[in-house]
């Protein structure tokens, strides 16, 4: 009898605990941002690595002080941001201020999850058209970015000098230089042709500069750009390993002296400063001399999610505006090797950070990936990286895009 009672109690306890813990999961509500209190803003971004985390924190703190709010910041890894946003949208716990990578803005805006900045009279005129294009969905601007990046051609100054080679400006020069710089276990050039959006991003400057376009993928211009990559790998100037390299791997190859030149972005500059050789950068070469080098625009924007609380939304919009004002724009650009999005301060910026000269020029013509296709961009991007992979692994370049489009 006695034993039974103990067992009964234990079992009841166990069942009760499970029931309780089952309930507490669904019971949470919106937390701090209910009601009309707008003194605290929640912020979500993906700058979770140092030094970016601290550098962005400094900018956030400065703006928090200016707008007169306290911040609750959460950072998640880059690859998890969209999933986090979707989960929080579902549980109605969206942050007051949300950072998004620029090609994702339209997809999220299309869901109705973001508030258009025109609601809060935010001035969007001083910014470079490409970042505004990226953040625009159906005529409304949804976010502002303080500073952006793009791609350029980095080269090992010592090696080029040794061979008496000038930094290439056209595709023919690029092929010649790459072939001449290939020696032993060193390749002339490195880029990332990996099977994800990163590969697409690296290919875009070649595709766009050649007059190719994402609205017509199976075009001679795109095929010609792909042929350039195929030739570079085919003649051994670029490692076949490129099909599996991330941009980080490309930088490692360059740093280790295994590639004399690389296609990469200015976010690599902090690591490159530790290189034991001299390096510099130029704009991505174009097919024929005199053409414009058109590279994709990279970087993040700050947006105001639709939280249903007008008071915090207004504060958040003020905050987003502050995050892209001249002062913040300049300081973030300087600290993180980005180019300010405010066209009026780019020249002043280049004077301060001469390493960024090539990127400053490149930004002026840069295009947003979602500028033409909007929320349909990911489909095109998938076709592009599949076509690159097909081309490099043996499908003729003029058939690769058609084949990739079949899915």
């Amino acid at each position: 009898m006695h034993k039974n009672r103990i067992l009964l109690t234990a079992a009841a306890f166990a069942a009760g605990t499970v029931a309780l813990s089952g309930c507490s999961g669904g019971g949470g509500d919106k937390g701090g941002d209910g009601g009309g209190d707008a003194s605290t803003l929640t912020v979500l971004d993906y700058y979770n690595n140092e030094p970016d985390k601290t550098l962005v924190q400094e900018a956030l703190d400065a703006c928090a002080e200016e707008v007169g709010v306290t911040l609750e910041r959460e950072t998640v890894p880059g690859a998890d941001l969209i999933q986090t946003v979707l989960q929080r949208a579902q549980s109605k716990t969206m942050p007051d201020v949300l950072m998004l990578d620029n090609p994702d803005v339209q997809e999220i805006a299309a869901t109705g999850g973001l508030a258009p900045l025109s609601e809060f009279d935010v001035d969007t005129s001083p910014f470079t058209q490409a970042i505004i294009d990226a953040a625009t969905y159906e005529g409304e601007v949804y976010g502002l970015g303080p500073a952006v990046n793009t791609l350029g051609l980095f080269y090992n100054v010592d090696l080029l000098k040794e061979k008496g080679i000038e930094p290439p400006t056209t595709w023919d020069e690029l092929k010649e230089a790459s072939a001449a710089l290939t020696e032993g276990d060193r390749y002339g050039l490195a880029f990332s042709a990996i099977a994800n959006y990163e590969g697409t991003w690296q290919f875009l400057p070649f595709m766009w500069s050649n007059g190719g376009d994402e609205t017509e993928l199976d075009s001679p211009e795109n095929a010609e750009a792909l042929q350039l990559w195929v030739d570079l790998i085919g003649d051994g100037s670029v490692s076949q390993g490129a099909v599996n390299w991330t941009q980080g791997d490309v930088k490692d190859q360059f740093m280790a002296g295994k590639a004399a030149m690389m296609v990469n972005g200015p976010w690599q500059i902090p690591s490159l400063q530790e290189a034991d050789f001299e390096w510099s950068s130029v704009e991505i070469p174009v097919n024929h001399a005199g053409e414009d080098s058109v590279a994709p625009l990279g970087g993040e924007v700050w947006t105001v999610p639709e939280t249903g609380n007008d008071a915090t939304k207004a504060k958040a919009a003020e905050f987003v505006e502050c995050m892209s004002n001249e002062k913040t724009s300049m300081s973030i650009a300087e600290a993180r090797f980005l180019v300010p999005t405010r066209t009026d301060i780019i020249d002043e910026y280049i004077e301060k950070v001469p390493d960024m000269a090539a990127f400053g020029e490149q930004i002026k013509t840069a295009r947003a990936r979602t500028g033409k296709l909007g929320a349909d961009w990911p489909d095109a991007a998938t076709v592009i990286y599949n076509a690159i992979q097909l081309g490099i692994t043996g499908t003729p370049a003029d058939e690769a895009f058609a084949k990739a489009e079949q899915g």
Partner: protein
Amino acid sequence: MTTATPIRARRRIRRDDVVKFMFVVPAAVYVLLFFGYPIVKNLTMSFQDYTTKTFFTGEAPWVGLDNYVTAITSNLFGPSLLNTALFTAGSLLGQFVIGLALALFFQKKFPLSSVMRALLLLPWLLPLIVASATWRSILDQDSGILNRFLGVFGLDAVPWLTSPDVALIAVIIVNIWVGIPFNVTLLYGGLQDIPEELYEAASLDGATGWKAFWHITLPNLRAVISVTLVLGVVYTLKVLDVILGLTGGGPANATQTIAIRSYQTSFIDFEFGVGAAFSNILILISLVFAIIYLRGTRKAVDE
């Protein structure tokens, strides 16, 4: 006295029932919450147009079998199904043969054998994402240690992860490495249970070496072998991290499997409905193997 006994007995039965019931409740709640709910949710999701918009609006229109049609008619479905089969068969064969060989080897008592057996578990303890990152650098075409090693013997560099013809083999090799500890552990346990007397009796009749292995070890190990293989199939079908870490499904989709398709359509293309359809197809395949296993063991019991 005599009249009181049945009443007490009845009351005790009722209380026993409650006790039994209460003991089942935690397990039942757990199963329903963490197995039942996800499976039902996955099933319903595969019949809905479930996209990024759904998370904001809560609307997921019913589309019937459309998602399954999209999944099955996609050009990558055939190749991924074939790759899944090749990957599973190849991994299983390698894991099992090497695992059994190692298990037999460790049955011999020799100095440090238990230490070495413990070390053999290391691949199992290593997070798969770390393991695949390490293998990625080992298999690198230009500077990977494997090609450097092969170079010593005058062999050409093998494009392990960069050629569509070789990538699947490379991925299978890595997955074999990952699976060996699991196979060794189960098979070694099975070997320990075979009575020593059987071998002694057999050796008197002249059955040693291969003969003993064929007529004593294998028949006695049959139950363990079938468990190992069925679990192996189920674990290998769903392998995601090894392939994602090594090739991400590339080059040129050469290492796409149904699991990778499911992941990519769900979490890269954000078409959760189609992704759920892919994963349900995978669950169905696993289920077929589970049923084959259950039937097989039932037959063994009947015999």
